[in-house]
């Protein structure tokens, strides 16, 4: 039982929740008022969940809950008891990139990066439902997320590339890596 910084919550009411996050079981006692976004960031350490508005507009905190895209600032952690949750950290392992992440990199579909987790999750969801989306379908699906840097052009390009990669098509248009710095 702990708060943002690990200190005991004390007398305030808590409720135990158990769920599966990125393939790992998690059980915590949390205040009923705790938002899912804050739970994922502060209790589970998944900082890839970005908090941009806390009122359901910007989409930076988008995660998948039981296969549905959810703005995690609009849900309480206690509502996800026994759920399966996927965040951007769960898309790939050991520092490798999921094809959607690769596509965002190659297409320069991120600048400041604060919206990127949300866009990657939304794109992942789109391609799961529609493996070869049209430009209009991509625009419609991604209209739930705001990017303030890229003007979306390269994000569309990333969606196309990711679709191609996940369809197993050869992709020889990647720019060379600078690499090394992380």
């Amino acid at each position, binding site marked *: 039982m702990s*708060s*943002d*910084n*690990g*200190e005991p*919550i*004390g*007398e305030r009411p808590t409720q135990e929740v158990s769920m599966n996050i990125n393939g790992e079981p998690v059980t915590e006692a949390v*205040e009923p008022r*705790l938002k899912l976004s*804050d739970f994922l*960031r502060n209790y589970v350490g*998944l*900082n*890839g969940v*970005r*908090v*941009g*508005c*806390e*009122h359901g507009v*910007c989409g930076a905190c988008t995660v998948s809950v039981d296969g549905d895209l959810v703005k995690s600032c609009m849900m309480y952690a206690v509502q996800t008891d026994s759920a399966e949750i996927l965040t951007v*950290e769960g898309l790939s392992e050991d*520092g490798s*990139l999921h094809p959607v*992440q690769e596509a*965002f*990199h*190659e297409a*320069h579909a*991120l*600048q*400041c*990066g*604060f919206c*990127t*987790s949300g866009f*990657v999750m939304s794109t992942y969801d789109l391609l799961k439902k529609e493996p070869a989306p049209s430009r209009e379908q*991509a*625009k*419609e699906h991604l*209209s739930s*997320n*705001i*990017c*303030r*840097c*890229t*003007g*979306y*052009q*390269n994000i569309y390009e990333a969606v196309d590339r990711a679709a191609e990669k996940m369809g197993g098509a050869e992709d020889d248009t990647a*720019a*060379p*890596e*600078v*690499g*090394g*710095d*992380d």
Partner: protein
Amino acid sequence: MSRSDAPAASDAAEDADEEGFVGKGLNRVEDHRILTGRAEYVHDIAPENSQSMGLLRATHAHADIVDIDTSAAEAHPDCALVLTGEDIAAEYNPMPCGLNGISEWALAKDTVHFVGEPVALVVAADRYVVEDLIDLIDVEYETKEAVVDPIDARQDETVLHEELGTNVPDSENMHFGEVEQAFEQADNVVENQYSWGRISGVPLETAGAVAEYDDETDSFEIDCNIQLHTLVDDTIYEPLGYDPDDVALNVPPDVGGSYGTKIAIHRYCTLAAIASQQLGGTPVKYVEDRIENLQGGDMHSSDREYLFRLAFDDDGTIRGIDVNFTDDFGAYPRYPVNQALKPLTNVTNAYHIDHLRYNYELVLTNKTSQTAYRGFGVPQHLYALEMAVDEAARELGMDPYEFRQHNLIQPEQMPYKLPTKNMYDSGDFPAALTRIKELVQEEEQVEDGLLDPDIVEQRREEGKYRGVSYTVHVEPGVSGADWTDRQRSDRDSLSDREMDDVEELPEHLRCELLDDGRLLVYLAADSSGQGHQTIVKQLMSDELGLLPTDIDVDYLDSVEAPTEYGSAASRMAVMLSGAADGLADEFIANLEQLAAEHWDVAESDVTYQDGSVERADGEARLSLVDLAGLDTERDADEQLTRAAYDYQHPVYENEEYEEAFTNKYPVYPTAAFAANAPIVEVDIRTGEVEILKFYTLRDCGTQLNPTIVEGQAHGGIAQGIGAALMEEFAYDDSGQPQAVTLFDYLLPSTKNVPEIEMEHTETPSPFTATGAKGTGEGGMIDGPPAITTAINRALEPFDVVADQVPATPDRIREWLRESDAS
């Protein structure tokens, strides 16, 4: 591994070929950590045992604080600290302002001046408890008349700050050329008012600070996402009452956007530092929430009312412009007061105009104070100018394309000195305007194109009016430091100044060789998505004949770095080009000295190339690993495998700029430019504007990384679309903000940003190390005037001029209702 050692199969080595890495669209090194969710933004920094800070904010626009009762909050078992403005004033100093003679406190003292102004701070372990504590504080206010309308504010019936005695704390009426004569002699004059609504950058990451006071050293460490941390650190150490060296500002490598806005987050850094000190050194973290950010986050920007006159002859020649405007700065005249002056750098845009008046007033009202935003006051000016140009063309019955083409500065006039003493370095504006029109005609004025005359006619019958306009715009780059305090200077004595009086700030870069032969380069500037680490790798790879993978790039905090300028003002491409050039020279000279001393030969007998130093006789060679090893044997203060360089300013030595420098007129020595042609469709029944496609031809000189350049242009244009059509911080008559969520302050989404068709030309700057010109603000500068002129074209049958932005559906409907033609 140096480039010469690279295996032939290496992608990067192949890509470098003879020309090097600069100019290549290398993928960014910043991406991987961001994409995997591992990037550490300031919101993610949470030291052990850190406490969370929250702010109670004013609910009135203008009110005296009669009493603050904090007892209930203090009695809460989880409350660590409560402070009010009185507590701050008792021990600390006010925050510096943009003008002399006014004090602003980090927490309001006695009087609140805008809704959202912080009144008290609370600290607790848990952010949710912090919100509980804020609710427990009771403030008694006595409300005062709110000053809301900037035009009325000038009457000084209610004055915001008694120490200033006026709501117009700064103004200047500047004449260049023979403007009165030009207006008298011109065949025609158009005059109109244009209004630019209050907008800002609204980065997706809000402001944040994590401060820790160290009792033993009596100093502060502050992690924060402030922009220009080496330049504006005075806004934090001064209110704390400490020396610069005792307050280290550390900006994480990843900042979630700023666009100028985060230059002014010093209030938060200061308060978190004070709270940490009051708690004996417990780290204190503050993260602004979105409502705080929109309502009172010190980050609104330009809000202008123009009265613009343009004098022109019957043949379409512009004779002069008369620019008058007020800029509503909100409650305090903060740092970006010089946003009012930057338009002097491109005051005639791409036109040759010899005579002009530039007359501005800064006005204070009971609204959130201004900060900087992409373009720094220039988008507003270009919008007003291009509206006036459209009106002049319309009055003559001349095609606005022909009118603009007739007045453009010709390539043979480059470098071109403006009446306001700044210079455009290079560019062919007429060719750009010609090309963009050609491109649109080829692509769209054809069968089934967006401008196919049959389709245009058919759409009109459905109430949808299409229009396209062709405009060309200058994006001034680089700036300088000396002019920025013009408004705090004695303006009458400026003409006596000489170049020795001009104090510029450099761009600092340093490097050190690591034991394994890798090079570590340090940026003093902070970044917020521009890809500076990638750019530095490209530049230094070419300078030293290394591979980008041989180089790491890290950042300096405000104590480690010298006072320098940093990333703003479309500056970094130029400044990093010069800094990398100078740093490499220093570093190579040091390595050659190290090798020469080792071999006991003259320095002229050794040569550095591609990662090693060779003796002239060809008998010996030292690799970077060898050199790093040799250097460890030397005394620490004599080590030679490191270097530092301060790149001064690209035109400091250029006599043509002397008059601008000494008179503190803004100096922006690079002129990137863009020719735009958005195709818009206005639904006259709903007033909605859809941008069907945005054509743009852009030139920022040599492109260091074309992929990054293109991304900057895309993003700038998207922000320009928001400014032109959607975004506005409106206020009601009592000074209550009307846009406090992202449901009210509308950011462009995939639904609003069209396909952008972009072409590039490269006209190198003659003044910069690589030929690069500043870019990054471009689309935000040239997007709004391009879109609003296109709306004018679409609504030409109704004689409508988009004289107010954002051109929202309700405004467009109002124009149409009022127009004679409808």
